[in-house]
């Protein structure tokens, strides 16, 4: 059976940075309307709705706000990686004939609300509360810090190598007018910034900003009136490995090993085919492990791989081209904005940060406590 190809036909960012004149729902609505307009569609066309972190019952409150009563609804909580997984699910639902126009939307005001937490557990009987939080482990920061420490111990990775990732993100952010942090930084700045949880420094850690976005997944037929070129979804995959950090089988291998294999296999590509990479950068170590697990370099080689500006403008693997969660925007869950940037790169509309001749883009989400991963491969027909 020949499956109908699925496309991302519209994308939009919500207002970004510090947003005082919107609610989360109104931000998501503004972005959704804009993304649908790009796709040549309206809210009346939407028959599938996807969101995470938009309140109790997920899509239900958002659906009411948008006036959408879907025939396919998905609020799967894969943390920041939910959104690449939503693309995966939307493609599967379109293939199965269960929907034709999928709207994925998200917004957060973590900065103005000061609501990002170091601890996620209020119930003292949860396994996390009993066996992690009682030791003062800050989530997710402490989890990622111990992953970085193990990678350093096992492979000799250095803080300077991790810092290269933050420096690359900032160099891209300097080219993005919407980026929150645009002043150049150096490796010395990163390793000289305050240690938060060893070995992670302040500048190894993502921003806390308001933001979000929306995107539309649909068929070629329904995207025929799109204002801009629709981008084809070539592959998608997802996985998760653990919740408690002591349950992660190997601290140096993430769920990307599975999500990448699935997505690249579906697309029929390898890492060598990727022109632009949008990896989730909650922390610098998040990117390093994605590079290894997605096959851009071997296990343990991520540190050497990123040295010398590999990911930066002009480097051999343009990555974090929006400036990433480290420098552009990180609204708690960054995965949707990775997809927005990947689509804009493939359309050639990324302005000063455009990667010339980009044909294949990968958005790679990571969520939870390095728990989840989801990977989407985008290209053209």
């Amino acid at each position: 059976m020949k499956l109908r190809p699925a496309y991302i036909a519209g994308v939009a960012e919500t207002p970004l940075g510090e947003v005082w004149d919107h609610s989360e729902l109104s931000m998501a609505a503004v972005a959704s309307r804009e993304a649908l307009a790009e796709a040549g569609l309206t809210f009346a066309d939407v028959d599938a709705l996807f969101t995470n972190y938009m309140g109790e019952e997920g899509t239900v409150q958002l659906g009411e706000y948008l006036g959408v009563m879907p025939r396919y609804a998905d609020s799967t909580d894969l943390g920041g990686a939910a959104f690449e997984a939503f693309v995966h699910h939307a493609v599967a639902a379109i293939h199965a004939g269960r929907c034709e126009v999928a709207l994925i939307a998200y917004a957060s005001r973590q900065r103005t609300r000061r609501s990002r937490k170091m601890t996620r557990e209020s119930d003292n009987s949860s396994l996390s509360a009993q066996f992690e939080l009682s030791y003062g482990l800050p989530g997710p920061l402490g989890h990622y810090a111990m992953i970085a420490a193990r990678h350093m111990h096992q492979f000799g990775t250095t803080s300077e190598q991790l810092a290269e990732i933050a420096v690359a993100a900032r160099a891209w952010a300097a080219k993005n007018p919407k980026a929150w942090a645009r002043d150049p930084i150096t490796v010395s700045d990163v390793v000289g910034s305050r240690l938060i949880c060893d070995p992670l420094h302040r500048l190894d850690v993502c921003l806390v900003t308001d933001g979000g976005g929306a995107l539309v997944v649909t068929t070629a037929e329904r995207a025929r009136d799109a204002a801009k070129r629709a981008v084809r979804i070539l592959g998608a995959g997802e996985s998760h490995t653990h919740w408690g950090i002591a349950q992660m089988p190997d601290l140096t291998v993430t769920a990307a090993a599975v999500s990448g294999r699935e997505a690249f296999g579906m697309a029929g590509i390898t890492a060598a085919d990727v022109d632009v990479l949008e990896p989730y950068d909650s922390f610098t170590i998040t990117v390093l492990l994605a590079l290894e697990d997605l096959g851009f370099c071997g296990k343990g080689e991520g540190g050497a791989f990123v040295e010398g500006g590999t990911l930066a403008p002009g480097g051999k693997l343009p990555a974090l081209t929006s400036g990433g969660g480290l420098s552009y925007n990180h609204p708690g869950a960054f995965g949707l904005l990775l997809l927005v940037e990947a689509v804009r790169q493939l359309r050639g509309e990324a302005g000063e940060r455009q990667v010339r001749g980009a044909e294949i883009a990968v958005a790679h989400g990571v969520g939870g406590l390095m728990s989840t991963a989801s990977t989407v491969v985008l290209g053209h027909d």
Partner: protein
Amino acid sequence: MTDQGPDLTGLPADPTTAPFWRAAREHRLLVQRCRSCGTHQFYPRPFCLSCFEQDPDWVEASGHATVYSKTTVRIPVIPEMTPPYVVAIVTLDEGPRLTTNLVGDEPEIGDRVSVTWRERADLPPLPVFRLAGDGGRGGPPPSQEGAG
């Protein structure tokens, strides 16, 4: 009372971990061991993750472990812990890993450590780990400390 489940007074409200916490009051570190394949596991589950046999036994662990990873936390997280302090993952000699604190002279990743206990006001003591008696960097496994 049996038809209302175990008495969890002074314990986390989780019936499945109550044996662990009751033993912790006596400074004994329990893990599960599969009665079929012998694999140890922690935290407890009603089946073996390796062979799926049901109802693993509770057994006392040696208290000897190796540091798998660690971080020094330099930000306030919970009122009971004043930064900086060290959170670690240790691999018990029996196999399972635990998240814990390292106390005393700071062990490095790969060092041998042994269990000791930190008393708490409202809950049972927590197993934490300190550098093994020989300095943690070689020699035979240290004698068990702090376990009764």
